[in-house]
């Protein structure tokens, strides 16, 4: 079974530029998550999708961040304009909501390391 795919793996941009990250979850996983992980910290949830609907985006800085999952499969996270403090690893994860404890088990992609200069 293929894992969660993310691209690009690395991105360097200047502040005020825009950037987009792509994620393809594990086939059949209805729930998709985007996390921001700053060096030395745990992942911080940015947005959670159930199919193509948003479950939680309470920590998404909506003035500059946006995300979509139009067909309920792959997803794009965009930052426009980027700030220096956006430098972080952006992780995508997916899970399969079966209603059991395993529903919460998340499978992560390798992440995209963003550096804003």
């Amino acid at each position, binding site marked *: 079974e293929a894992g*969660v795919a993310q691209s690009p793996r690395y991105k360097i941009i200047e502040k005020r530029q825009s950037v987009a990250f792509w994620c393809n979850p594990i086939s059949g996983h209805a*729930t998709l998550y985007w996390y921001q992980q700053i060096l*030395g*910290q*745990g*992942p*911080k*949830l940015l947005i*959670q999708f*159930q199919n193509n609907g948003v*479950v*939680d985006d309470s920590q998404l800085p909506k003035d500059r961040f946006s995300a979509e999952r139009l067909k309920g499969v792959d997803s794009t996270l965009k930052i426009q304009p980027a700030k220096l403090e956006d430098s972080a690893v952006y*992780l995508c*994860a997916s899970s399969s*909501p079966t209603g059991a*404890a*395993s*529903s*919460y*088990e*998340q*499978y*992560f*992609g*390798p*992440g995209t*390391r963003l550096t804003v200069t």
Partner: protein
Amino acid sequence: TQLLEQSPQFLSIQEGENLTVYCNSSSVFSSLQWYRQEPGEGPVLLVTVVTGGEVKKLKRLTFQFGDARKDSSLHITAAQTGDTGLYLCAGNTGGFKTIFGAGTRLFVKA
């Protein structure tokens, strides 16, 4: 605001030593996961614990869920250099919500 506190934040030990890391909260969780993350990679699921007092073993790793389902511990016996990484706990609440701790960074020296 629900918080998961992990301790210690950083641990450096010699190969062959034993260690325990902790994950604590004032909130009750329906279940809890432990993940390990290596540099440049995403977290990888190690285990899920569900029942209060539950103990699960994965080779040299022993995971315990507190009786009240508010805390958990991970014990590693005879640590190896391959155990080096960031250990994250994640607590599950209702509505398919999960909160992550900040992690314990473990370094095992040869």
